[in-house]
């Protein structure tokens, strides 16, 4: 029996624009938790600053709305202290690829058992539409009357370059598929990175639902290896969604800690006074 989705609701009203992709992403996140029977008080979600972050008080879980670009390390700190919590970090393409890019690379490399949802609407929407690293080259944007002078980053290529244990791509216009992807991400033991292509009706007029529908192609099954996965993340013609790459053989960061191997407790269970008399012998 799944937990009723209403249990994750708060009575705070949504504040996103009409047609914003965040509605579907928000529901997909709740639906994934509900279908996996993960109760609200055993869930921790860190929120970034940006339109995604404005969902922080609209979901009833243990949540922390922190700083711009920092939702990933904030989530990792929570995960390492209590692995009984299902930990999700939500972040936008701006916060993730600009302010906090190093966190993404190191989270993948360390393979912490968390799920990272990157909301990619190809702009800084909350600050009214500046270019991000995923904004198309040459596109006219806020304070760029002659168009964006730099090339864009393909999140899939970036993530695969760091040899992830899980990478998937979903789309805000397909919340059912997205729900399944988030569920797989949560279930995967390791750092699950999920890029969510997100419609932004206010500041990204080109990437409309129609534009996405024409290009999106669902991937039947994950790529067999990183090379095939690299082909799958290309956005040159078609855009592939689904679980793109998965590798269950990479151990998580925590599982590699020799000193935590035989312990059944979590760090949150261990706050008490410790006797240091044995350690003091080192100083005699």
């Amino acid at each position, binding site marked *: 029996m799944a937990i009723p989705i209403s249990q994750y609701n708060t009575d705070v009203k949504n504040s996103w624009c009409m047609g914003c992709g965040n509605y579907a992403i928000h529901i997909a996140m709740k639906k994934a938790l509900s279908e996996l029977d993960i109760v609200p008080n055993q869930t921790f979600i860190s929120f970034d600053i940006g339109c995604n972050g404005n969902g922080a*008080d609209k979901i009833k879980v243990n949540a922390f709305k922190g700083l711009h670009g*920092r939702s990933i390390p904030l989530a990792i700190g929570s995960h*390492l*202290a209590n692995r009984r919590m299902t930990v999700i970090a939500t972040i936008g393409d701006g916060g993730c690829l600009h302010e906090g890019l*190093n966190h993404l690379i190191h989270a993948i490399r360390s393979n912490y058992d968390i799920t990272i949802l990157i909301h990619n609407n190809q702009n800084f929407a909350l600050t009214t539409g500046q270019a991000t690293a995923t904004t198309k080259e040459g596109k006219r944007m806020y304070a760029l009357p002659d168009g964006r002078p730099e090339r864009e980053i393909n999140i899939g290529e970036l993530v695969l370059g760091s040899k992830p244990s899980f990478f998937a791509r979903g789309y805000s216009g397909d919340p059912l598929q997205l729900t399944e992807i988030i569920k797989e991400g949560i279930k995967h033991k390791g750092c699950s990175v999920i890029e969510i292509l997100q419609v932004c009706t206010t500041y990204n007029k080109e990437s409309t639902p129609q534009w996405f529908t024409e290009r999106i192609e669902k991937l039947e099954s994950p790529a067999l290896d990183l090379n095939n996965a690299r082909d799958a993340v290309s956005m040159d013609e078609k855009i592939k969604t689904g679980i793109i790459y998965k590798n269950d053989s990479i151990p998580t960061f925590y599982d590699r800690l020799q000193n935590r191997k035989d312990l059944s407790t979590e760090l949150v269970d261990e706050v008490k006074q410790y006797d240091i008399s044995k350690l003091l012998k080192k100083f005699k």
Partner: protein
Amino acid sequence: MSNGRVIIKFGGESGQGINTLGKILSKSVKESGFFNFAYREYPSLIRGGVASYQIDIAKEEIGSSSRYCDILLILHKVAVHEYLPSVSQNGIVIHDKDELILTQEEKEYITKNNITLVSLDTIKMALEVKGIEIMANMVLLGFIWKLLNLDTKPLEEIVRKTFEYKDVDMEAEIRCIMAGYNSKQIKEEIVKPLTFKPQKQWKDSLSITGNEAIALGAISAGCRAFYAYPMTPATSILKFLGDTYKETGILVKQAENEITAAQLVMGSMNIGTRAMTATSGGGFDLMAETVSCAGISETPMVIVMAQRTGAGTGVPTWTGAGDISLAVHGGHGEFSRCVISISNPQDAYILIQKAFNISEIYQMPVILLTEKQIAESIFNTKNLPKAIKIERGISKGKNRYEITDNGISPRWIPSKDNPTYLQNSDEHKPSGESTENSKEIIEMSDKRLRKLETLKQELPEPEYFGSKNPDTVFIGYGSVGNTIRDILKENPNIGYLHYQYIYPLKYEKIIEIHEEGARVVLIENNQTGEFGKLIKQECGFEISEKILKYDGRPLFVEDILDFLNN
């Protein structure tokens, strides 16, 4: 001999093993029953540059160094010009077989102060007893040991312990020590036997640095995660907690940068364990945004800030206390925080535990200040004090950010048995929901600031040391306090008011002392008197007389004596 101390200094090039020599000598002297304080100077490079280790041996407990030494051992000619001026009257300079190339001024200094030069071909001596070149250092150790006229047993024991797990020819090392000890060049006029008796209490004492004591205090306090990025002089906390992680079970993680380290601490403490990070000023700059976030979201957080000299990269391996303003003011917006300063291993051990209690009870960032001088010097200290009780301030309530009279809202640990809550860096309502409402902003901001006043009432007064009727009272904190406390006995007319709790500041005692008519002198290891500025900011009182030192060196005993004599 200065202030009844016998002082030995090694000077040479970084990479010559001076650190090991200093540690062995300090530990062996302690093992022989003599109290000593060991101070290290080294450049920010691995090979080359001048490095030194100074060991002040004293009859009673001390926590500071003298500007002068009685025996200077030159391991490399680069150290001659740097340290010759620090040799005291009737002192001895021991150098290798090559003749020292001295300036006219240096020659005059030697004659004027009756300094004896001893040339010792330590490499030859090492080779003669079938040692290898690097064991020349052991010959030197043996030579000093004879100058102090001490029994070789404790020295041999410490050397064996130090190299236990190293790939060395232990017997050759010992032969080299004995070669130095039995050298024909030891003559009566250069022997400097200790005039005081060995004491069991010093033999049994700990030989420990300030950073190690902070780490031990954190372990005692139930800190279960340590996240840090290497930065001198905080790094040895990472080393100790990393090296002991199997014994303690603590999760030790070297983060990709200081921002991450701070975020990991905030995340781990929010979810209900105890975690901390340690850095220096530059790393703290990167953490400042997170400190501010912990401030508004009322998340407990503990940061050790180990100070060094200078802005930018500054003089990275040298001491200073120029980050008081950063600790008190760093981070945007207005929020409550606590800043604590340590002086020695004893108070480091206790104050880091207090830092955890305060950060959890008051739900605010706590910054524990130390300095390179405290962080890396070796103190001999009697057993550490008894650990203090862990207080976490965990309570249940309706709203996570309930408006309360003392400013402290209920905080509970997220778990399957507890209701969820939103920890919010947006301004928020008592429920945690974001708000931009004028009344709600004021109410929540006022609540948060009330915690500072509540905490201030709870904090102890600064501690006063010295004369009951002083002519002069020094005001200080951190390592300068060690230097002043070391000279109080011989200077019966002075007093010292020592601050451990820097912020919120209890300033009333300063005003009291001033009104009673004593001359008040601020003493700080920085350029502009940062603590003095804080005092003025808090109560309007300006301390006009100041001893300020900002050359990367700690306050030496003579720095204060010179001030008093002028």
